[in-house]
């Protein structure tokens, strides 16, 4: 399904490159972003490139700097170093102008307690430059929101819905969603996916989606960037990244095998009583299999590379003394 999505996204790039406003098909282009809060360095040379028309996953463990990056992209915070362009403009200097063309859903959102959900949706839409009333009502129905309730009575999930509806009902080029489904129940998560896929099929909307939910990222994103400790550690398409992950192989052999340990790309090798188990990088897969076949295989189980493993690898690897 991501294959399909990528096709539609790339065709969009061909159809409407001019909408990005001179960025050559790039909606967001940040290079070497640095942001310090006192002695704490929140962003330490972060790179992020989002192409026009794509859904871009933005991943990283808690405190990696996702929200700080988004705030810089919104011109709410100023970067201490590096360069950043958003929709062809400078997010700090041209904030107000650029914000007409984008909608933002904060991660942990609260509203004015005595305004109803419907009022908040209308207000945010109007401040952005107007929203489509038909689309608003359609979204309210799909997300099963009661817009007459006061904001103070909404649960976290319902507040998230209000923010999402307000953003999605606006006709904007860029959606910046900071963990938009946290707090939504699985049913509503599904609705969210449908809506985003619909947006994607229009081809001219760019989405920056920060998320922790792998299934969501796999279902929606064309490309993704993983950050850790304020730095980008991986970026590329899902297939690119899958390529980086390892296949787990367990085999029962009929004869002895010695050459495995010497193959580049084989990790965590264990062998006992004619059974071997190891992880292998994509590049090492063929030579590893060859040596297994040479030794004689009684049975073999291979576990395909999963994104989850990739994320866990990046999330748990300790660097700069930050154990997770």
């Amino acid at each position, binding site marked *: 399904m991501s294959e399909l999505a990528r096709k539609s996204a790339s065709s969009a790039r061909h159809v409407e490159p001019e909408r990005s406003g001179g960025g050559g098909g790039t909606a967001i282009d940040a290079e070497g972003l640095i942001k310090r809060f006192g002695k704490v360095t929140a962003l330490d040379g972060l790179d992020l490139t989002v192409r026009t028309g794509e859904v871009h996953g933005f991943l990283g463990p808690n405190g990696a700097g996702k929200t700080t990056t988004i705030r810089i992209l919104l011109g709410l915070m100023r970067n201490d170093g590096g360069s950043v362009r958003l929709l062809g403009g400078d997010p700090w200097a041209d904030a107000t102008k650029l914000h007409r063309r984008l909608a933002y859903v*904060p991660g942990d959102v609260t509203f004015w307690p005595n305004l109803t959900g*419907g009022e908040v949706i*209308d*207000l945010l839409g109007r401040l952005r430059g107007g929203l489509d009333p038909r689309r608003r009502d359609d979204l309210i129905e799909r997300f099963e929101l009661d817009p007459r309730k006061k904001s103070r009575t909404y649960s976290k999930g319902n507040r998230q819905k209000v923010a999402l509806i307000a953003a999605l009902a606006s006709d904007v080029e860029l959606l910046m969603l900071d963990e938009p489904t946290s707090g939504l129940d699985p049913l509503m998560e599904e609705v969210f996916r449908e809506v985003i896929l619909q947006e994607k099929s229009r081809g001219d909307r760019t989405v920056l989606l920060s998320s922790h939910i792998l299934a969501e990222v796999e279902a929606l994103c064309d490309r993704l960037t993983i950050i850790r400790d304020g730095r980008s550690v991986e970026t590329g398409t899902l297939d690119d990244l899958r390529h980086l992950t390892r296949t787990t192989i367990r085999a029962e052999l009929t004869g002895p095998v010695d050459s495995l340990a010497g193959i580049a790309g084989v990790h965590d090798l264990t062998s006992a009583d004619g059974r071997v188990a190891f992880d292998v990088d994509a590049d090492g897969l063929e030579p590893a299999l060859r040596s297994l076949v040479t030794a004689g295989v009684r049975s073999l189980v291979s576990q395909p590379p999963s994104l989850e493993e990739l994320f866990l690898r990046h999330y748990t690897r300790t660097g700069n003394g930050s154990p997770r």
Partner: protein
Amino acid sequence: MTGTGRLVRLILRRDRVVLPIWVLLLGLLPQLYLAGFQKLFTTDAERLEYAHVSGANAGFAGLYGPLSGDSLGELVVWRSGFVPVMIGLAALLTVIRHTRAEEEAGRSDLLRATVVGRWAQLAAALLVTMLSGLMIGLLVTGSMIGAGEPREGSIAFGALFTLSAWLFAGVAAIAAQLTTSSRGARMTAVLVLGISFVLRMGGDISAIGDGRLAWLSWLSPLGWAQKIIPYGEDNWAPAVIALLGTVMAVAVAGVLLARRDLGAGLLASRLGPAHAGAGLSSPLGLAWRLHRGLLLGWTAGFAALGVVFGGVGTSVVQLAATSNEVADTFSKIGGSGSITDAYFASTTGICALVVSLYAIQATLRMRDEEQNGHAELILGTAVGRTSWAAGHLLFALLGPAVAMAVQGAAAGLTFGDPGPVLGAALAQLPAIWVLGAVTVLLVGAVPRFAAVAWGTVAVSLLILLVGPLLEFPQWAMDVSPFTHVPQLPAASFSAVPEIVLILIAVLIAATGLAALRRRDIPA
């Protein structure tokens, strides 16, 4: 009430700085007055003269309460007459901070899920606040006895302060059960304090005039505490009333608490409109929704205050008519003005200080919006920082003007001559705006210390209350912008200080806005 002890320790840990400050400051204020008086009077005759004149001053009676006699102790009690209001304020803020504010922030869910009883949080907040009130009382009693004042009077004096804290801890305990927001609870409790003050003020001013409205004091919790009259009658009957009032308030709060769910208030939320009205489409439209309750509350409160001040003003005229001698002395001290002019000058001055709280509250709303993430939401749309701030600042600028004008007009109309009193009220505005502008600067340049803005009112109030008595040097008096505005109608109008204050306010606010445009949000 399981877990109360642990919660008490949690509160003490969180308030380990603020709590000792207000206990010490408020508990030792009478000592400052005592020292001031001892320095001021070299002979008994001077003291008697001072007491004679001050006791007949309606403005003083309004601010401090009645002066019961001419002993040094009674003078100190009288001069400390505004301290119970500050004690009540500190007590109610503490209680709400540790009850409704916790619940609203969702921390109560966390606590209540542990081994903590239903009433534990309320009990802990009340316990800490009431013990702090007791400490204030003990400080007063101890220091007054130490200074050689009569024992029973000093105990009564301490009880006056302690009971003021207890009564408003009880009021806050009830207020915390009524509304779901801590802002609402705080406003309710402060409103009760304000009404108590106005009732006591009206009753006491009337008492030194024709006495027709003297019974008003008995409707006020502050009045009950003050009716103890330390060093004079040392009357313990009002203390019993105050104690009963406290017990009842706490009991009512406990019953209300048992009847509602965690997080809920007693006043249930109703459904609202599904679509926003046409007005809710700009930063200003939103600001109106956020500020209108505040504006309405302050305006209504100050209209009522104006009616009381104006009505009591007629008592002051009577006083002047019956005692020519008093009027003479008074006008000598008060400058060229008549006795009613001096009275209205002093009520207007108090109003201006109180209204500056409103100016600061309205300005700090910006900081609130920033901290709870609402600013991010608005600034993420096509709204610039200046127009976002402008929506709030418009209310910080015009709100106090409306409140002061309504107060002045109501007082003047009730008294029968609206012009001068209204003019006096409006003449105070530049000073109020300076404090509002300082708040803008704090929010813009050092947002973490924005709450320091409240301190500017405290300093101005302190300068007003103790400055003249302790003979502060002129530069210290000049720190307060309220020193500079003409005290109409007792003094004559001069435009220069007004214009200078307005320019200062504009300059400070512009600097603050420039800083706001340059910094991170949220910061």
